C-alpha cells in the first residue's frame, strides 16, 4: 500500500508524524519504505537521525533519480545507520525500515513524461517489495503533489492501493486551508479528476489528520482558570463545527495527534523509551500514533462516508 502525506502549509508536523507512523508500522513487523518527496526542504534525514549516512549518499537521492541523474535513488537502512541510540536496537521481529532521502540542493521541478515514468517505475518497484510505502510530499499544492496524482492515475498503477493523509493544525485558518487544499477549485480532488482519477474513489482515499491538537480535557490544562477552560472548550467546539461545515468533519478524520512538545521541538521519532523511561513524551501521543498507524490499513476507516 502507498500512503501519500500532504499538508496545506508547512509546520503541520506532516513529516515528523508520517515518519513516526512509518516507524510504528515497522515495529509492528511491516517492511516499510519512507520516501522524502519534500523537494527543497528534505527533513527526513534529521527525523530518522541518519545524517552521517546521508553524507555518504549526497546528491544520489530521490531528486537526482527523478530527473535522471542516477539510475537508482539511494536507500538508507534506518535500523543499521541511525545515530539514535534506541533505534539502533530494534526489537526482534520488526520489519525493515528504509529511508529514501531527498536532495538538499534539489528544488521543485516540472512533471515531465520522463520524470513521471521514473516515478511510476519506482513506486511500482517499492510496491512489489514493501508492505507499506510512505511518501512525504511538499506542503501545499506542490509539484510533488501533482506528480503523485499523475503517477497514481497511470493505468499500470490501477491495482495499487494508494491512500492520502492530509495533515493540518487545529486552527481556523488551517482547517480552512486543508479543506481548500483537498476540495478547492485547484485542490487535490479536482487535480486528480483532471488527471483521470475517479472522483468518488479519490475522495474515499483521502483522510485528514489533525495535528498538534490541544485536548481541553487533558491533565495538562487542569490547572488553567475556569474561564480559560470554558473558552478552550468553546473554541474546540467551534473548530469542530467549522471542520464539519468545510467537509472535513469527524467521518473524514483518520485521527488526531495531541499537542506534543517532543514532536514540535525535537522533530524526531518518539520511541517507547521517550515515553516509558525518560518520560519526556506523553503516553497519549504514543497511543495516538500507534492508533493512526494501525488505521492506515484498516479498511473500516476508509469506507465511503
Amino acid at each position: 500500500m502507498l500512503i501519500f502525506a500532504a499538508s496545506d502549509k508547512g509546520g503541520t508536523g506532516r513529516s515528523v508524524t508520517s515518519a513516526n507512523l512509518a516507524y510504528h508500522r515497522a515495529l509492528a513487523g511491516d517492511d516499510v519504505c519512507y520516501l522524502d518527496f519534500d523537494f527543497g526542504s528534505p527533513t527526513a534525514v534529521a527525523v530518522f537521525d541518519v545524517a552521517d549516512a546521508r553524507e555518504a549518499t549526497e546528491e544520489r537521492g530521490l531528486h537526482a533519480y527523478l530527473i535522471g541523474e542516477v539510475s537508482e535513488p539511494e536507500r538508507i537502512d534506518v535500523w543499521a545507520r541511525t545515530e539514535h541510540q534506541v533505534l539502533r536496537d530494534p526489537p526482534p521481529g520488526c520489519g525493515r525500515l528504509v529511508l529514501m532521502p531527498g536532495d538538499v540542493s534539489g528544488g521543485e521541478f516540472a512533471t515531465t513524461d520522463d520524470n513521471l515514468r521514473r516515478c511510476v517505475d519506482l513506486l511500482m518497484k517499492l510496491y512489489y517489495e514493501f508492505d507499506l510505502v510512505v511518501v512525504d510530499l511538499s506542503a501545499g499544492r506542490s509539484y510533488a503533489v501533482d506528480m503523485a496524482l499523475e503517477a497514481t492515475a497511470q493505468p499500470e498503477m490501477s491495482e495499487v492501493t494508494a491512500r492520502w493523509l492530509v495533515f493540518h493544525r487545529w486552527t481556523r485558518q488551517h482547517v480552512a486551508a486543508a479543506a481548500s487544499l483537498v476540495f478547492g477549485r485547484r485542490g487535490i480532488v479536482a487535480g486528480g479528476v483532471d488527471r483521470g482519477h475517479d472522483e468518488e474513489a479519490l475522495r474515499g482515499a483521502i483522510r485528514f489528520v489533525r495535528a498538534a491538537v490541544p485536548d481541553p480535557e487533558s491533565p495538562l490544562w487542569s490547572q488553567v482558570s475556569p474561564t480559560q477552560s470554558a473558552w478552550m472548550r468553546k473554541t474546540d467546539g467551534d473548530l469542530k463545527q467549522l471542520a464539519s461545515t468545510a467537509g472535513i468533519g469527524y467521518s473524514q478524520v483518520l485521527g488526531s495527534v495531541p499537542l506534543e512538545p517532543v514532536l514540535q521541538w525535537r522533530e524526531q521519532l518518539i520511541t517507547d523509551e521517550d515515553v516509558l523511561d525518560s518520560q519526556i513524551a506523553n503516553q497519549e501521543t504514543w497511543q495516538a500514533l500507534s492508533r493512526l498507524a494501525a488505521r492506515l490499513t484498516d479498511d473500516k476507516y476508509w469506507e465511503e462516508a
Partner: protein
Amino acid sequence: MAAALGQSARSVLACGEVRTCLLPSFQALDGRAAAQLLRLRADDHVRVSERPTMYALSPEVLTGVDCRLPTSNGSKVRAVGTVVARAALTEGRLLQSTAYFSVPAAGPDIRRPWGQYLVRPGLVEPFGKLPQQATAEGVLRGAGRGELDLGTIAEGLLTALRRHALLDRRVPFKSRPTHLRWVARRQPEGERASLTNFTVAEGGLRTMELRLPQDVPAAAAAGLCEDLALHDWLLTTVQQMLDNSRIGATDGPSVVEALHPVVVHLLHLWMPRAHVDPALGHLWDVLEEKPGFSRQWEKLSRRIRDRLALQAVTTPHQALSPR
C-alpha cells in the same frame, strides 16, 4: 593488422551484474507467455527449455558505451565498446536480468569507427593499458557517477520487462530483489574454472570472483552467476519470510497464510545447475560444500513443512473440513 586486433580482443577480465526478482504476475507464466515476454529482439528467438525446469532465456541486446571504467584506485580509464544484456525467466516465476562485458589487457589510444566495436559484441576496449586488479575491484564495489554502471543497464532491462503489458502487476507476496556482481579473471585454456570468492553483503548485494579458462565464453559465466543468484535469492527470501515475527511468534491460521506463498510459488524452484554450462557445473560443488546452499534449502523446506504439519495437527477437525 587483423592479427593485432585479434590479439587485443583476447579478454583478460569479464564482469557482470545479475538482478533477481519475483515476476510481478499473480500467476506464473507458461512457456509461451515467457517467450513473448522475453522477446527483446524481433530478429532472434527466445530459448525455452521445459526440462528439468521451465527456463526461458532472451536473446542478447547490446548497449554501446563510451565512458570510464569503475576502478578502486581512482585511475581514470576510458573504455569503448558494447555491453551485453539479457533476461531469463525460471518456472515463469523468477525474473533475472544480466549485463556483462569482457575487457582485453590493452586497447588502442584512439576511438575506432563503431562498426569495429559492433563486430565484437560484449567487448569493451580500454584506452591504453587496463589496470586489471583496480577494475575488478571497482566493478565489485559498484560504479560511481560517470562510470560504466552494469547495474543501470541490468536494472533498465528489468524495469522495462516489469512494465510489460502481459503482466498483471500483482505479486503473490512482497519480496526484495537482489543483485550479484561478478568478475571473472581469464586464465590459460585447458585449466579448470574455479570460484575464488562469494560474499553476501548488506542491501541485497552479493559479489563473486571466478577464474575462467580462455575457451569458456563469458556468456557461460553469466549463466552460472544467474543460477547462483537465483538460488541465493530463494534462500534469502524464504529465510526472511520465516524470520518474520508473524511466523516466528504467532500460531494459528496466520502461519498457514504466511507460509502459503512459499509452498505454492517457491518450494519447487530449487534445481541447482539445471541450466549451467557443463564446463562450470563443478563450481557449484564449492558452494554446496561451504556454506552448503542445498543443505540450507533442505533445512528451510523441512522447517516449513513441519510448521504446517504442526498446524494441521492442532487445528480442530471442523476447521479442516470443507465448509
